[in-house]
């Protein structure tokens, strides 16, 4: 099975994050592999391993799009266990919205499937920076693949995919056939950590560098120029500050109600 996993290099949420880049874009210092993509990678590795892994010809390709530093998301994926990587990077991609991003990634996936077809495209449920969740569905639309998004359970038996998708009012069982696109939630598995062996092995794994010319995309279709939306203003919200903190001396429940009454919340 040939699986492409989309991985994104995102600002670490443990630190303050800022929209101070050109065109109100995200400042990408202190970036990491998006933790929501670790679930997609884990799902891919489990599917590959259940079929005999790399030795049996299964491939897990970690694909990222982003500036030079974004290759670190691919490197981390290789350490965790992906078999190879691809890094789509081009100055013209800067400032891409979901539409431009999905256009470029769709072309990159077609490129990776040129020699042998891709069976499955796996993604996280959202990026932890933009958080729109739009790219997976847009990729399915662009690639003409069945879309199985927000899967909290995934099983692939031959060509048949069975997944669970939890909605607010109901939980659905969803079925599709390969090739397909699946996005997974953080309910699906427990991602593994890279171990020492994996870290050493990753050094020998191949990362293909791709440009827009390689994948046949025109610069005008992507980046800020090709984006269909524009962020016009970005304003930092003043950070919340701590209020009154009390220690319970047997009457904190009553003091809590006093507070709610004073705030007119009762």
């Amino acid at each position: 099975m040939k699986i492409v996993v989309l991985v994104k290099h995102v600002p670490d949420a443990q630190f303050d994050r800022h929209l101070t880049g050109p065109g109100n874009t995200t400042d990408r210092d202190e970036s990491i592999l998006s933790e929501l993509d670790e679930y997609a990678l884990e799902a891919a590795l489990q599917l590959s391993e259940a079929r005999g892994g790399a030795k049996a010809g299964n491939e897990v390709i970690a694909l990222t799009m982003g500036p030079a530093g974004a290759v670190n998301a691919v490197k981390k994926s290789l350490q965790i266990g992906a078999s190879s990587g691809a890094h789509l990077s081009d100055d013209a991609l800067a400032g891409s919205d979901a539409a431009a991003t999905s256009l470029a990634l769709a072309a990159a996936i077609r490129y990776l499937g040129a020699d042998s077809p891709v069976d499955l495209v796996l993604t996280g449920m959202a990026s932890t920076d933009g958080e729109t969740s739009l790219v997976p569905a847009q990729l399915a639309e662009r690639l003409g693949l069945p879309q199985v998004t927000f899967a909290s359970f995934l099983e692939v038996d031959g060509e048949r995919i069975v997944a669970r998708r939890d909605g607010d009012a109901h939980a659905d069982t969803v079925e599709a056939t390969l090739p397909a696109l699946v996005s997974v939630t953080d309910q699906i598995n427990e991602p593994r950590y890279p171990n020492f062996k994996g870290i050493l092995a990753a050094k020998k794994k191949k990362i293909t560098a791709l440009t827009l010319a390689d994948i046949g995309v025109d610069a005008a279709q992507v980046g800020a120029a090709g984006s269909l939306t524009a962020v016009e203003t970005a304003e930092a919200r003043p950070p919340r500050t701590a209020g009154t903190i009390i220690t319970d001396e047997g009457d904190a429940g009553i003091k809590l109600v006093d507070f709610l009454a004073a705030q007119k919340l009762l």
Partner: protein
Amino acid sequence: MAKALVFIDNPGAALKKSSLELLTIARSLGEAAVAVNGELRDDVVGALGANGASAVYRPSATDLDDYLVAPKAAYLAAAVEASGAGTVLLENTADGKDIAARLGVKLTAGVITDVVGVDADGTAHKSVLAGSYTTTAKARTAVAVLTVKPNSVDVEAPAAAATPEVVTIDVPADATANAARVTGRAQKPVSGRPELTEARIVVAGGRGVDGNFEPLEELADALGGALGASRAATDAGWIGHDYQVGQTGKTVSPQLYISAGISGAIQQKAGMQTSKVIVAINKDAESPIFEIADFGIIGDLFKVVPQATEEIKKRRG
């Protein structure tokens, strides 16, 4: 006049508050129209008219719910073209965002998610990076697709009701061709409490509740609020995943968020730190939740919460 099309998936017997909110926004942008999927009752057509819808579109097919979103996006794209709408408004749910995403590709339309306000000129307001920034964004295309969070506007009645014309839209023949099928559907029990993302008050519990949500349920009921939880509590199976607040759960901005036995990890804060007033109850004075609490109590939730519930009941007589 500019037209705005609201998508309502399975309106059922009565319009939900979130649908009325979308209609209120649609009217502020121009002439409102509605595209529904699923059964369309006559009295619902009447209610849509009463809320200003000049036209109601329905699909020629009745089996769109048997597939995961793709055919709904194909139908909606056809409805947008038939209506000539310049703005499409959907709910900010998983389905709403997935349909919006595909619609954006089909119509080469800019899509903006997680919208909390829309200006008359189509500028969308949102809160990003876990509530640390507010941004405005605009589609650069002829059609804009917006998914709007609940409680973004106050529902208003239109100056005049309309008598909508009902138009059937042919669902493209290939709409279901490559779509994933829904082969099983389990309805979830309804709680009787307000919907988490729409509630004015949320009472949330974490690992500290140690499997016992009862004291929090009683407080939520005394306050007329919804129940929420941290991922530690949902992962432990003490409460359903639907109750999870945070990065991979629901984002809420109620008037009051009461957090009990929750440490305040960054992923939890991502879903609740735009709440108006935050109250935290935690045994550990070093807990990061206290950094964002307006009122914090260092104490045992099993003592504080029941005492507060009793006191509320007492004051209300």
